[in-house]
């Protein structure tokens, strides 16, 4: 079976698809763009990179001229689901002190871990494209976020004297429990 242009240059075509998607080019226009490139490189015998440049540059140039799809809420969904995870972490940290009728103790490092998680969530719109373009970033984010979560749990102060904050666990539990049924996912 003869290999088509898209088989021979799979990586280039995959990257173009992703980049056009990031520019919110409609599905039909993406299919059209891929088929046009395949047609042109079959005709000219050129490499896609020579005839069209990098997928990122070409997608930007094409997207400036093509009809775009309305915003599809992917960013909103990702932020809400990550926020849901943070709410769950706080909820689970408050359960044990509440059941033992003890205050919810928070240490400095623990608060720093929560702050890091909050920054990761709030800054997500700024680096979402980086995540989708690079596999390493997609792997690193849950690792860093997970490590911050585990560290926050491990470094929970045992005694009130070593804690920075001592909160009543019930309001925290009620507030996070009220937030959790929200459509985060």
């Amino acid at each position, binding site marked *: 079976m*003869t290999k*088509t*242009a898209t088989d021979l240059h799979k990586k280039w075509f995959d990257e173009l698809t992703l980049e056009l998607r990031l520019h919110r080019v409609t599905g039909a226009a993406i299919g*059209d*763009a891929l*088929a*046009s*490139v*395949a*047609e*042109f*490189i*079959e*005709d*000219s015998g*050129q490499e896609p990179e*020579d*005839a*069209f*440049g990098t997928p990122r*540059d*070409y997608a930007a*140039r*094409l997207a*400036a*001229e*093509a*009809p775009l799809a309305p915003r599809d809420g992917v960013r909103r969904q990702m932020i809400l689901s990550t926020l849901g995870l943070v709410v769950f972490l706080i909820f689970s940290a408050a359960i044990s002190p509440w059941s033992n009728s003890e205050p919810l103790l928070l240490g400095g490092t623990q608060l720093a871990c929560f702050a890091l998680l909050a920054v990761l969530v709030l800054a997500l719109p700024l680096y979402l494209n980086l995540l989708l373009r690079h596999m390493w970033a997609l792997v690193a984010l849950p690792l860093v976020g997970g490590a911050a979560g585990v560290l926050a749990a491990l470094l929970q102060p045992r005694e009130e004297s070593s804690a920075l904050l001592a909160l009543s666990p019930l309001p925290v539990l009620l507030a996070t429990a009220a937030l959790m049924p929200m459509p985060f996912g």
Partner: protein
Amino acid sequence: MSSTQLESWPSDWNRASLGLCALQALSAGPTYGYAIITALEQAGLGTFKGGTLYPLLTRFETAGWVEVEWRPGESGPGRKFFSLTSHGRAELACQRSQWLTFTTSTTAFLTAANHRGVSP
């Protein structure tokens, strides 16, 4: 129509004239990307990349100047044929007339002995 012009023109000139020349290349009837580039090259206008032509054709399509039709190829992918709409033909006629006026003025200016705007 062919030319032995192998010189590469300043990229600004190509950028300015490519749209008009691509519309002209479509005036003889439906054609496709590589054929347009070949026609421009054979006319001595320079070498153009697919990455330059297709966004321009997409702009024409969005503006309603061209319509497209996919036709099955002999082998491999099909071909996307572009053809001028009546709106596109009117645009070509208008741009061609403007270009001829502009280049006539430019040529007259470049060959005139005295072209100071005001007397010193």
